[in-house]
């Protein structure tokens, strides 16, 4: 195995700063003269704001300013936009009510931004925020998604609180298939609402420089360029070239740090208003709970039609998706294009139809959370397939096998718009079955029963689509942005390399993997390559990191830039070695004249490029290339997870006793990092299935507003995960990679719920809380006794 190139488990170079406490997160940054912002947040879910009295707060010690929506309005500050316009089934664009950074006249969820207090110290800002008097006129909240259509109307623009009623797939074909079906399995599912909870709370510093009339924004962002674009083009109307967004070390994102939020908007605006005083805000965890974009929150009815042998004929899915009180940056796309398009799963189901209604409710905005739409899709398919196997009394593994898309069917056009380029599902299933010891499961179950425990096993054969693309296609579907990535590869005269990437690392280890990639491509020692990310002031352009796109898209851009470097290097080498460019071959950092032993190292070529005394005519000096890569298609990682659990019927506790994950991520650059991504994803998926749930009470108060009530997975909730891999390389990107960041979170919930429901012999919704499990376990024992 290579020790630093592609495929090597290189230890992460970014770790040194983190393990020694030298990471630099936004809250670690303090700017001279900095002021502190504290937001006054709505304490009730839905109300008219009849008046805001800021007089007392303004008089409080240290207070510099108090601003409300009126101040922003007077300054022409716009609404936070949703960047993806979904066209509904009647050809109408989705309803996009304004989302003001500070409310104008109405609050729509607990935590909504009513005013901001800016003071010399944080304590002063918080003390004064309590002095802002708001006169609320209570309105009925809309909390229950299932009833959202009948509730009080939250936005004038959206009657029935409906944002869109959208569909995908051939309904007639599905209906016809159901007519023919020998068997139909039906299932009602709730995909529980989650709160992302990256361990670093969001934070921002807005800093206006009066002298240069420019802005610097430090932000916990997964995509600094996108944040800049949104703030400049839509909200604050700033000249983009005068705004620099820095996203330094970011302590996890999982989607929640993709979006443009009110807080960084207000800090940036306020800094100008206050003559260039930097304005800093750091979320308290309780604010994160209230105001970070939440994830999931679907209510679904699904039906699967089969023939007598269990061949899938058609799938129909009807989903209500909670969008929250306002549309977050990509909220509309998540339950539509990132969800319904995945409903074919790994199966050759000929017809699929999905109807999605997106609703506004008096809850925090909902947007992409690790997996974004795809975990919801996998959950629907893999739960209903498991239930179908139970209905048909078939082995769940074999039912899946019977319906897999076969290797010779690729590229495979699904009935829900996507074209899978490649995949090979059976070997992955076989490997997982082998690893878990499926053949001996009955024996293990009997052993558990002898100890008074209920054992269950559950499968999840997931597929995901990573690296949303290509831009033209997503554009035709309503995306407001392009989904390419950029890279700049710059040789320094002494032969070291600086790589600038638009992807952003907040735990993924790009500084290591991207350097491995460049080292392999250019033959430059790994140590001499530096990866620069997270600063619009340094990086040409970028779309950031989400949707497991960094390597497939960002990595591909790097490859393209490297290719350009080599191409130019060949011209210089040919000149130096007095050969024809066509005869130059590049390998392992050496430009060679084919068929001779003449060679020049890439370091010497770089030096020559910057000291071009002996240089080819017509070639520009310098060795510094930029490339943009727009993918041709999504990539389609797929795999099988199998969970085995033991339930204690006395208490309802579920113990995960074994977990096997076999994933096909295409080519793997750094297996250590990939496995780490899988572990983390599984933990979040297990969290969703077993522990986590955002609960609002009837009045719209968030009951699970802290770690006292929102159950974060802890170390003792897990067993060791056993991870295996199979490889079918992606056919359409230069690396053959697919992406691995979300797979665990996509696969895990269905695997775990299938295992628990197998143990219980009853279908239950997530999260499988101990009380719920206890009730069903008791019912099972009682039924068995009768």
């Amino acid at each position, binding site marked *: 195995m290579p020790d630093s190139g592609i495929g090597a488990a290189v230890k992460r170079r970014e770790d040194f700063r983190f393990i020694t406490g030298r990471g630099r997160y936004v809250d670690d940054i303090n700017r001279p003269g900095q002021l502190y912002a504290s937001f006054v947040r709505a304490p009730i879910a839905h109300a008219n704001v009849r008046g805001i009295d800021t007089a007392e707060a303004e008089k409080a010690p240290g207070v510099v300013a108090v601003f409300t929506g009126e101040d922003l309005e007077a300054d022409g500050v716009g609404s936070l936009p949703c960047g993806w316009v979904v066209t509904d089934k009647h050809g109408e664009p989705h309803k996009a009510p304004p989302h003001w950074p500070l409310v104008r006249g109405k609050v729509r969820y607990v935590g909504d931004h009513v005013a901001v207090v800016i003071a010399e110290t944080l*304590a002063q800002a*918080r*003390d004064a925020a*309590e002095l802002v008097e708001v006169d609320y006129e209570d309105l009925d909240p809309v909390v229950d998604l299932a009833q959202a259509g009948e509730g009080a109307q939250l936005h004038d623009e959206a009657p029935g609180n409906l944002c869109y009623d959208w569909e995908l797939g051939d309904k007639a074909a599905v209906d016809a298939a159901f007519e023919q079906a020998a068997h139909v399995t039906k299932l009602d599912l709730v995909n529980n609402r989650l709160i992302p909870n990256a361990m670093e709370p969001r934070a921002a510093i807005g800093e206006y420089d009066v002298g240069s009339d420019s802005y610097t924004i430090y932000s916990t962002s997964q995509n600094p360029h996108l944040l800049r674009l949104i703030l400049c083009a839509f909200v604050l109307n700033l000249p983009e070239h005068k705004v620099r967004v820095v996203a330094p070390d970011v302590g996890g994102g999982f989607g929640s740090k993709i979006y443009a939020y009110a807080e960084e908007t207000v800090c940036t605006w306020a800094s100008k208003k206050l003559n260039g005083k930097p304005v800093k805000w750091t979320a308290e965890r*309780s604010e994160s709970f209230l105001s970070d974009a939440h994830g999931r929150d679907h209510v679904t009815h699904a039906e699967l039609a089969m023939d007598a042998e269990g061949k899938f004929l058609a799938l129909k899915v009807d989903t209500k998706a909670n969008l929250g009180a306002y549309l977050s940056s990509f909220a509309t796309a998540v339950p539509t294009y990132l969800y319904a398009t995945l409903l074919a799963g790994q199966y050759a189901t000929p017809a699929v139809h999905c109807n999605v209604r997106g609703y506004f409710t008096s809850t925090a905005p909902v947007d992409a959370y690790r997996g974004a739409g795809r975990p919801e899709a996998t959950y629907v398919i893999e739960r209903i397939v498991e239930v179908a196997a139970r209905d048909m009394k078939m082995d769940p593994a074999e039912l899946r096998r019977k319906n897999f898309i076969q290797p010779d069917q690729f590229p495979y056009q699904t009935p829900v718009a996507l074209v899978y380029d490649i995949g090979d599902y059976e070997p992955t299933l076989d490997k997982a079955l082998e690893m878990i010891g499926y053949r001996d499961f009955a024996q293990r179950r009997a052993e558990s029963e002898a100890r008074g425990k209920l054992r269950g096993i559950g499968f999840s054969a997931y597929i995901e689509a990573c690296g949303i693309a290509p831009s033209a296609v997503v554009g035709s579907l309503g995306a407001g942005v392009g989904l390419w990535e950029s890279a700049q590869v710059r040789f320094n005269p002494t032969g070291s390399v600086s790589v600038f990437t638009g992807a952003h690392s907040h735990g993924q280890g790009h500084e290591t993997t991207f350097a491995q990639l460049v080292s392999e491509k250019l033959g430059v020692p790994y140590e001499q390559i530096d990866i620069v990310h997270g600063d619009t002031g340094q990086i040409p352009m970028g779309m950031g990191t989400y949707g497991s796109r960094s390597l497939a898209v960002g990595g591909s851009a790097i490859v393209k830039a490297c290719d350009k470097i080599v191409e130019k290097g060949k011209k210089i080498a040919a000149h130096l070695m007095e050969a024809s460019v066509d005869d130059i071959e590049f390998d392992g950092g050496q430009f060679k004249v084919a068929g001779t032993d003449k060679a020049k190292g890439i370091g010497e070529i770089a030096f020559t490029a910057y000291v071009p005394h002996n240089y080819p005519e017509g070639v520009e000096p310098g060795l510094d290339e930029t490339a943009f890569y727009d993918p041709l298609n999504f990539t389609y990682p797929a795999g099988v997870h199998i969970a085995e659990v033991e339930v204690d019927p*006395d*208490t*309802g506790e579920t113990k995960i006793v074994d977990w096997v994950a076999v994933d096909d991520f295409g080519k793997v650059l750094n297996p250590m990092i990939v496995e780490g991504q899988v572990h983390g994803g599984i933990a979040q998926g297990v969290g969703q299935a077993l*522990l986590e749930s955002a*609960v609002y009470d009837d009045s719209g108060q968030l*009951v*699970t507003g802290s*770690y*006292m*009530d*929102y*159950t*974060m997975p802890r170390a003792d909730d897990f067993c060791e995960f056993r991870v295996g891999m199979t490889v079918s390389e992606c056919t359409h990107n230069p690396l053959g990679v697919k992406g691995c960041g979300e797979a665990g979170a996509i696969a895990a919930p269905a695997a775990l719920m299938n295992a628990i429901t197998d143990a219980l012999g009853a279908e239950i919704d997530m999260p499988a*809380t*101990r*009380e719920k499990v*206890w009730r069903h376990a008791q019912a099972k024992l009682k039924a068995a006794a009768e």
Partner: protein
Amino acid sequence: MYAFNYHRPNSLDAAAQALAANEDAKLLAGGQTMLPTMKQRLAMPSDLIDLSGIAELRGVCEDGDAVVVGAMTTHAEVAANEIVRSKIPALAKLADGIGDPQVRNRGTLGGSIANADPAADYPAAVVGLGATVKTNKREIAADDFFVGLFETALEPGELVVSVRFPVPEAAAYAKFDHPASRYAIVGVMVARTGGGVRVGITGAAPSAFRQTEMEQALAGNFAPDALDGISVSADGLNGDIHASAEYRAHLVGVMAKRAVIAARG
């Protein structure tokens, strides 16, 4: 956090005086409840009186057939203390299961029982082991100490000095923890003593209580199946999104059995 004045007296008297001097003054022990509450601006003491400078409040000693634990003794110290481990291992185990290691390194016995959180562990020990709470003014029997939700028999200006736990013949604590906070959803301390059996329950109700029906059944037969016929009523028990009253009632039975099994060794 709101602003306050900070004091660190080095005698019990000075602490009592400082406490009496201001109506809104509060004691600060390990701070593991007080400080989070203040950070969330749910408490607004004018003065905080830090008890950590008072040596006599800290430590464990044997006193006849009892173990006396100073109010400022941390959970970690109780868990590791040789006297506690040999005389009342159930108490050491209980202390070792409170919160997490960092909370145990600061949180104290006195702070825990004075706070009387319905989900705290120590109240089960105080009630279950039939302890006596010594304050700067008097001694309070376990059965009289916990009065209600976050409410004790302590009067204004009164502070816990130590708790005297009689050494049982056998005892054990079984806890079913809250999934998020890891406090007790239900915690049961079962103790067999010369005078009979005591069953102290925390988590289930607004305040720690004794389950007398179980005590009687176990007095006749200190074995898990002695509890078989007893059904705990859900009336008056706590219910929330993590556990309904009915589920808690059921768990009282399960945890009591587990405690009996553990106590029998």
